């Protein structure tokens, strides 16, 4: 077994165990940390595909920003309210569906011929050039979207003037 494959399995183990943790853990904080584990695993997978920039971004954004934002959100609300995180009644159905979907995806994978090319790498330079020449406009649009999302998020969370009196005690 070549080393890269072993490394891939290790990364995959990180990813999947983190993922399972997210969907089964009863403690919401554990869930958040499981997500972090999963994200780190994915960064590993990126590395194995020679996408070091993406791996970096993955750890920075998901490992840093996302998980921390989620934890902050939990802290801003009363954490006790999140204790009861029992699952829905349709958990068996969800299980069936997700397993079925998996089976279908695998089946489609088997049915479809996949490209069998060699692994190729894209250097960070190439990525940067591509991003700022061919994809410059979408990139700018994406940044606008981010801006709008930020403004939107603030607007949504902001307490309205009318809310003050009846505002909650927290």
């Amino acid at each position, binding site marked *: 077994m070549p080393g*890269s494959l072993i490394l891939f399995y290790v990364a*995959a183990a990180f*990813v*999947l165990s983190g*993922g*399972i943790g*997210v*969907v089964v853990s009863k403690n*919401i904080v554990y*869930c*958040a940390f499981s*997500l972090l584990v*999963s*994200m780190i695993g*994915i960064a590993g*997978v990126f590395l194995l*595909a020679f*996408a070091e920039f*993406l791996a970096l*971004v*993955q750890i920075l*954004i*998901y490992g840093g*920003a*996302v998980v921390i934002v*989620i934890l902050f*959100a939990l802290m801003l*609300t009363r954490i006790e309210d*999140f204790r009861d*995180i029992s*699952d*829905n009644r*349709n*958990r068996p159905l*969800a299980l069936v*569906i*997700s397993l079925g*979907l998996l089976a279908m995806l695998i089946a489609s*994978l088997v049915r479809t011929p*996949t*490209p*069998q*090319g060699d*692994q190729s790498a*894209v250097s960070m330079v*190439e*990525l940067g050039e*591509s*991003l700022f020449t*061919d*994809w410059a406009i979408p990139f700018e649009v*994406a940044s606008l*979207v*981010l801006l*709008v*999302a930020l403004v*939107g*998020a603030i607007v*949504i*969370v902001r307490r309205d003037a009318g809310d003050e009196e009846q505002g909650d005690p927290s």
Partner: protein
Amino acid sequence: MISLAHFQVLAYILFCLGIYGVLARKSTVLVLMSIELMLNAVNINLIGYSAFGSFGGSHTALGQVIIVFVITIAAAELALAIAIILRLYRERRSVNVDEIDLLKG
């Protein structure tokens, strides 16, 4: 050797975990996390194709570019989603998806 299939299978499993999470979990925060899992599953798939596919020309970096966008959108989405959850919590004292059924017919 690692092959494309490895990436794909990993992506599928993660995606289905995400689906399961979305459908089965009660807390909106957890649903949100599951969605993140699904997004990342997509990313794994994309990076797989990017690494093994041969698209040639100006499209060599396409896979990674798209991942960059996905991450961007995911971040934006997360920010909004958290904002909505906070607001929801303030209005209703609950973040359980069972109890959010304004669209009930």
